[in-house]
């Protein structure tokens, strides 16, 4: 009987040691290039100043001769963990919300594209 009690206590201890965890980690420029904001932009008309006024400073500026590109990046990592002691498992999923805008020599928008993950 004593042994059985000890065994039960051990099993209970194991059960108490089990855990799960969840976290998320966000880096970059806050996403605010939703459709409502972007609908005001037009290639051939909008300027770099208008884009900067709408979205703020970018993550990166790229230049080629007179042309330039503004890149906005927001990285979102989500992790889930199962900790059983004998078996432990972690899943970490990183997705990238991003937007890029190209401007010609006159700082007029020539091309642009945005992408936001549904889970954001």
């Amino acid at each position, binding site marked *: 009987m004593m042994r059985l009690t000890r065994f039960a206590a051990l099993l209970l201890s194991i059960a108490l040691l089990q855990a799960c965890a969840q976290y998320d980690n966000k880096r970059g420029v806050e996403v605010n290039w939703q459709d409502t904001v972007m609908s005001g932009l037009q290639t051939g008309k909008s300027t770099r100043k208008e884009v900067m006024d709408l979205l703020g400073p970018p993550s990166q500026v790229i230049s080629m001769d007179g042309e330039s*590109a503004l890149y906005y990046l927001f990285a979102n990592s989500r992790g889930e963990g199962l900790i059983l002691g*004998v078996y432990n*498992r972690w899943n970490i999923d990183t997705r990238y919300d991003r937007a890029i805008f190209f401007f010609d020599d006159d700082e007029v928008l020539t091309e642009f594209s945005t992408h936001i993950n549904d889970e954001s």
Partner: protein
Amino acid sequence: MRVAALLLAALLTGCTQWYYELGEQLDESRLPSASTEVPLQAVLDQFGPPLRITATNSGYAMAWEHWWIREQSVGFNLGALGADFLSVDYGELHLRGAYVLMTFDRDHLLTSANYSEWNSRGGGGQSIQPFAEIVDVVDSDDIRVELPQHEWGGDLLAPITKTINRQSSTTTGQSGLEQRATPVDIGQRSLELD
């Protein structure tokens, strides 16, 4: 008593798996052909903004990537064999992914489009260590680094070796692209070694 010892041995055995996914899946069938004049905007509409971009002498190079990384390790204590202070560990790294690289000329027309994918073992190791796994036998830290856009502004505050190498740095968007896990001791980053 034997059952308890067996149970204790089981408790001292552990398996850990880490799964990482970076980016979204890429579809080779959607890759445009460079033989027809494909404008940059059409590519952006289809693939979205690239994850990596650099200006080149003749235009732009852009890359999209998807990585799936699995780290798994198993370890057990040698207590059952009378060596309580020793831990045996085995680890393995598996990599799967795809990469799309496209280049554009100064008129923003597609000049090349390439797709590659891989599914391979990325290394691993085994060890006998005191008490627990103190040194990792599997490590993917160098693959899971953040995208270079996050470092763009801070590059000028980097250690002097990196700052001197800025004109050749792959994090500026002006001097080329670099895939994850590219060794740093040769090529454009070799000057950055401390």
